[in-house]
């Protein structure tokens, strides 16, 4: 009955991984709220994760907003619904595309770099060295990264992604598709509700948490030299992206399903 043995092994290794991740996550979270706090590391991470991700997040959103406007205009013109363009752009960007695309971009950028950095520190014994210097790597390395990503995603990156995305739609609509500028802005602001913004920011914070958690988890448990670090980096990005898409659905369900 080899087939059953394979199923058993897969289930066991899945449960083992889930348990290890659960323990890792709860340890990380508990260290986020207990002193000592390393503010210098936190600030450094906020700069790298937030500020330095701005250009790529901004560009992505700008072109996504622009493409969205073109598509909606073309599609809407088939049943004379072009005038719905501003409201669809703002809802599409703020509720979905802003946070999700920003999350995926940041997952590629940030969780890969976390996994590679922590993985290299692990295989070169730097994490062990840190423990021998009476410093908890959870506090010094992991807590600042998770706090920084969970804060920077909503309060810097997704705010920018949402605004620039709407701006992309506006530029195309007014510059190319003949919309009136004031009219476009009024339609946008009238249609946008506070709940949309809350949902967007909630998604951003949740994505930020999982991006950094995956980066740290896979990096921290890297094994076996350069190849091992490569594997952890891949796993970090893939699992972060999948968690983003999964939790995106769940948050959307919580906010908007009625």
């Amino acid at each position, binding site marked *: 009955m080899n087939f059953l043995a394979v199923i058993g092994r897969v289930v066991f290794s899945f449960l083992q991984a889930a348990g290890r991740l659960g323990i890792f996550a709860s340890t990380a979270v508990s260290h986020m709220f207990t002193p*000592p706090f390393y503010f210098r590391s936190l600030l450094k991470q906020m700069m790298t994760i937030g500020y330095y991700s701005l250009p790529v997040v901004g560009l992505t959103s700008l072109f996504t907003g622009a493409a969205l406007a073109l598509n909606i205009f073309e599609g809407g013109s088939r049943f004379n619904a072009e005038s719905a363009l501003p409201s669809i752009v703002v809802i599409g960007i703020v509720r979905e595309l802003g946070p999700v695309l920003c999350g995926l971009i940041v997952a590629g950028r940030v969780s890969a770099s976390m996994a590679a*950095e922590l993985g290299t*520190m692990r295989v070169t*014994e*730097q994490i*062990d060295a840190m*423990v*021998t*210097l*009476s410093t908890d790597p959870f506090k010094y390395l992991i807590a600042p990264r998770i706090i920084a990503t969970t804060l920077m995603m909503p309060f810097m990156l997704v705010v920018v992604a949402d605004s620039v995305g709407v701006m992309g739609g506006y530029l195309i609509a007014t510059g190319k598709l003949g919309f009136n500028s004031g009219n476009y802005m009024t339609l946008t602001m009238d249609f946008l509700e506070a709940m949309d913004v809350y949902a967007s920011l909630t998604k951003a914070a949740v994505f930020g948490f999982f991006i950094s958690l995956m980066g740290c988890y896979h990096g921290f448990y890297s094994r076996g030299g350069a190849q091992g670090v490569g594997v952890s980096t891949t796993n970090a990005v893939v699992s972060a992206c999948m968690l983003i898409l999964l939790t995106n659905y769940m948050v959307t369900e919580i906010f908007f399903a009625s």
Partner: protein
Amino acid sequence: MTDTPKISLKGLHKQFGPKVVLDSVDLDVMPGESMVIIGGSGSGKSVTLKCILGLLHPESGSIKVDGEETVSLRGRDRKRLQRKFGMLFQGAALFDSLPVWENIAFGLLAERKVNRADAKEIAIENLRSVGLSPDVALLSPAELSGGMQKRVGLARAIANKPEIIFFDEPTTGLDPIMADVINELIIERVKEMGVTALTITHDMSSVRKIADKVAMIYHGNIIWTGPRSDIDNSGNPYVEQFIHGKAEGPIQMEVLKA
């Protein structure tokens, strides 16, 4: 000298899955003594060290430091114990994101005992004591040669004024002259600070230079202990084979068995 050993291992047992790495290790290291553990690759030297440091948890057995049982220590007690330890890692394990001086002062800064200006002074003092000039302080670890990295690693290990210093293969990967320089530094620092030293190595010239006592580990057991002067007439065929580096003898390398 007191009768309580600085480090006392009794029946230390550690296995990874089915593979027994430490069978039953017994070892006493007296205060102020320089003990060197010799043994081939994979004989359990590094694992012994990592168990004492608390980086690995043994399955059974006892590890006493200053007569205090340490295997079960956690949290604050573990941290208090950790302050007694300094460690020079095989690959130096310097934090490559920090300049040399912050590496040396890492333990001091992490515990917030000193401000950054004072920490830098202390770091430069420690750099001098390992024969490096103050201008090295601002370099990044990647800019240093292997020998300099080892010396910075030594400076970091002694900066917190530990009571016990562990050396993991201190001369591996260095040219013979640099190896001797490091050996000299180890003797000088250890004697001057009056600390207990525990070194693991397979470099016999290093053993002859820095050891007060020598212990040989083989297949996870200490098979011989004695003062340095006795290693040439130990009467133990394993020790004989090891110190003369012969392929033939009671120690059969894994490659030959297969």
